[in-house]
C-alpha cells in the first residue's frame, strides 16, 4: 500500500509538473498580446483619434511615457496606450499635478487635435486632463526594419527601438567629419544633438531633444562620445517633423 501511495504521489507530481510547464509555456506564448482596455464612455479609441480631423475636439485615455518639459503651468508629454501614441503639447498642468505624472500614469485628456509640420498632437490650449487609476508602460517597438517605409508613420510618437545602426559622419562648420552636431553645427553644449546612423545601406538622422534629455543625461553624454563607425542600439520616441524625427532617449553599444 505504501509503495502504491508513493508511486501515485510521484506520478501525480510528474503530471502536475508537466501541466505547470505546459501552462507556463502557453502563458509565455500569449504574454506578448496586450490586452486593449475598453475605453470609458465618450473616450476615443486610437483609431478614432487618428481618424479625427485637425481642430476637432478629442478625448483620449492614455499613459504618460515621458515628460518633455513643464513651465508656466504647461506640460509637454509623450504618452501611449496599448493601441498607439499621443503627443500632448502645452497641456495646462499645475506643478503639483506634474509631479504626480510618473511614467505609466493614466490620464484622460480632452483637447483639440492639431498638426505642426507633420507632428500630430493634442494642442494644450483649451485642453483639460485628469489623472486616473491605472498604469501602463510601453515596451519599445523594434522599428529598425520600418525605417524608410510608409508604415512607419502608423507608429508616430510611439516608444521604439532601433538596433544595429552604424554611426555615420556629419560635417561641422569647419568641414570636419564628426559623429554628431549641436543643431546643424551652429549650436553649443546644451542644445539639441543631431547624429546620423545607417542600416541596410540607408542613413537616417536622430535627435537628442535637449528638453527631453538635457546635457546631464546619460544619452546626451553617450552621443557626445560616439565615433563614426560605432554600431549602436537606440530607444526613443517616434516624433515627427516633416518626416520622422526620433527623439532618442537611450544609446548603447549594439548587443
Amino acid at each position: 500500500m505504501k509503495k502504491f501511495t508513493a508511486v501515485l504521489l510521484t506520478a501525480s507530481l510528474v503530471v502536475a509538473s508537466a501541466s505547470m510547464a505546459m501552462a507556463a509555456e502557453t502563458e509565455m506564448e500569449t504574454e506578448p498580446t496586450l490586452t486593449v482596455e475598453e475605453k470609458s464612455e465618450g473616450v476615443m479609441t486610437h483609431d478614432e483619434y487618428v481618424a479625427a480631423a485637425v481642430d476637432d475636439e478629442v478625448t483620449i485615455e492614455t499613459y504618460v511615457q515621458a515628460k518633455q518639459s513643464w513651465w508656466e503651468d504647461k506640460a509637454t508629454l509623450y504618452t501611449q496606450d496599448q493601441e498607439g501614441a499621443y503627443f500632448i503639447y502645452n497641456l495646462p498642468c499645475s506643478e503639483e499635478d506634474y509631479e504626480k505624472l510618473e511614467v505609466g500614469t493614466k490620464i484622460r485628456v480632452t483637447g483639440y487635435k492639431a498638426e505642426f509640420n507633420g507632428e500630430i498632437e493634442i494642442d494644450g490650449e483649451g485642453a483639460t486632463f485628469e489623472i486616473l487609476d491605472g498604469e501602463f508602460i510601453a515596451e519599445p517597438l523594434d522599428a529598425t526594419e520600418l525605417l524608410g517605409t510608409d508604415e512607419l508613420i502608423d507608429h508616430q510618437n510611439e516608444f521604439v527601438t532601433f538596433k544595429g545602426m552604424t554611426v555615420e559622419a556629419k560635417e561641422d562648420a569647419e568641414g570636419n567629419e564628426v559623429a554628431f552636431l549641436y543643431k546643424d553645427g551652429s549650436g553649443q553644449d546644451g542644445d539639441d544633438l543631431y547624429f546620423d546612423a545607417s542600416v541596410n545601406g540607408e542613413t537616417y538622422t536622430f535627435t537628442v531633444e535637449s528638453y527631453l534629455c538635457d546635457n546631464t543625461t546619460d544619452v546626451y553624454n553617450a552621443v557626445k562620445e560616439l565615433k563614426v563607425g560605432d554600431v549602436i542600439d537606440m530607444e526613443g520616441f517616434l516624433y515627427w517633423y516633416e518626416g520622422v524625427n526620433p527623439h532618442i532617449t537611450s544609446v548603447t553599444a549594439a548587443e
Partner: protein
Amino acid sequence: MSRLFMKNSDVSPNRKSVVRYENFGDKVITKSMAERTRNMMARAEEALIKAGKVTYRTKKASARAARLLALVFSLLFSLTGCHGKREQRTFEIPETFDEAGKYEITFWAKNDTNKTQTGIYKKAISDFEKLYPNITVNLRLYTDYGKIYNDVITNIATDTTPNVCITYPDHIATYLTGQDSVVPLDDLFADEKYGLGGGELKFDSPAQDEIIPKFLEECAFGGSHYAIPYMRSTEACYVNKDFVEKLGYTLPEMLTWDFVWEVSEAAMEKNADGTFKLNGQNVLIPFIYKSTDNMMIQMLRQKGAGYSTDDGEIQIFNDTTKELLETIAKHVKTGAFSTFKIGGYPANFLNAGQCIFAIDSTAGATWMGTHAPLIDISEDKLVEFETAVMEIPQFDPEHPQMISQGPSVCVFNKADKQEVLASWLFAQYLLTNDVQIAYSQTEGYVPVTSKAQESEEYQDYLQREGEDNVTYYDVKLKAAKLLLSHTEDTFVTPVFNGSASLRDAAGQLIETTTKSVRRKATADDAFFKKLYTDTASLYHLDQGSAQMDPDAVVTGAEALGPLPLTSKLLLAALAAAWVLIAGYLFLTGLRRKNRK
C-alpha cells in the same frame, strides 16, 4: 526613399530648436519655441530653466525668479520714471586703452540656426583678438532673442551680465531698469580716439555718419543711444508666382491685402476627390504669416490706426483692429489663411507647393524656394516653381510701409572702465566691412553702414544675383535688395518698458482669432470683446491705458486679482517701517522739546 523620412537632414527639425529667424519683440522672436516659438517668452523662460539646472525644483525657481526680476525691474522703472531722467552710473572713457592689462569679455550672440553665421562670429573674434591680443572674447550662442532677454534679466540681478550682447531696443528698455546696466553710447560714438572712426582704433571703423541714420535712430530712446545696429531686415512676401498665374492672376507691382485675399480664396476650389484643384494635394494654405505680431503692427500702421504712443499709452484695442481681425477670421474660416504657430513654417508649405503667399523675414530668405540652400522638407516633397520676392501687402501701395527689424548690439556697464572700453572696441569691430558684409550674406540681411553697403565688395555681391544657389541665391539677394530699396519706408514701434508685451499681445489677437475660428467659434462682437479683455489682462495692458474700451476691459485691479501673500507682507513691512520712522521722529522731537 520614403516620403515620410527626411534623410540626412542638416537642419534642426524640432520646433523649439528650429528658431531660425523668428521675430522677437519688434522683430524677430520665435518658435520653437522653438521653442517652438509658439509662445516665445515661455520657451525662453524654459530655456532659462534649463540652463545648467538639474533639478526640476531649481528649474522652476529660476523661471519664477526671472519673471519676478522682470516685474521688479518694471516697477522700479515706473517709479524712477516719475522723477524724470534716470540717474546713470557715469561711464567715463579712459584717456588711453590699457594694452598691458588682460581683459576677458563675454559676447552673447544670436544666430539663425545657421552654422555659417556661427563661423563668422568666430572669425570676427579671432581677427579682433589678433588686433588686440590683450582682449579675449568668449562667445555664447543663442538662437532665440527671448532666451537672451531672460538670461540678461537674471544676470543683471547678480551683476554677471555679458559685456556685449545682441539685443533689441524693446529689451534694452527693460535692461535699463537695472541701475546703470547698459552703457549710453553717445560719448563713446564721439570719442576722438576710440569712437566711431576714432584715430586710435586698430581697425577701419565707420564714422557715425556712415551708419544708416534710420537704423541708428532705432537704437536711441530716452535721449541716448543704447545700442548700435548690427544687421537689418524687414519682412517679405515670398510668392509662388506659378500658382498665381495658374489661377488667372498677374502679380501687381506692389501687393495689396485685397489682392492677396482674393487670390487666396480663389485657390480654395477642390476636385471631387477632395484634393485642391490648384496643387492636386490634400493640403493647401494659400496665405501663411510667420510673425503675426508684425502682421498686426504693420496693418495698423498702414491704416494709420492706433498701436501705442511713444510714451507707452496702449491704443491697440480699437475699432480698426477689430475690423482687421474680422477680415482675418473670414479667411481663416474658408481655410485661406493660417499662421506659423498653428501649422508650421511657411517655408515648408511654400516649398511643398502647399502655399502661395508666405510672409516671413527677409532674414529667412535662404529657406524659401525650390532651390533654397536650406530646406526642411524631403526632396520628394519639393515642387518646382518660380519664387517672387515682394514687399508685404499694402493698404496704400503708393505709400508702402513695412517694419524694420534685425539685431542690435549693446554694451553692459562694469566697474572696470577699461573692461567697458574693451567691450566697446569689440562691439564697434562688428561694424567693420569684413563682418558686416560677411554676415549680411548669410541671409537676406543688409549691412547697417553705408561704408559696407557702398563698398565694391558688397556691390559686386549684389550684382551677382542668381550665379549660384548658395552665396548668390537669387531669392536671398532679392530679399536684401527689397530692404535696400525701401529703407525709407520702414518703421519701428515705440520702445518703452512694456513694449515687448504689447507686441506679444498684437500677435496674440491674431493667433487667438485664427485658432478659435478653426475650432468653429463665431467671431462676433461678444467674441472680440472677450478677446480684448483676455488679451489686455494676459499681457497686463489694462493698467493705465486711456484708449481701451471701458466696456470691454476690466480694470487693472480686477485683472490682477487679489494681492499675493508676499505682496501683502511687503506692503505690511513698508507700513511698519513708516510707522517706526514716524515714531522715531516723534520721540526725537519730544526729547528736544523736553530739553528746552
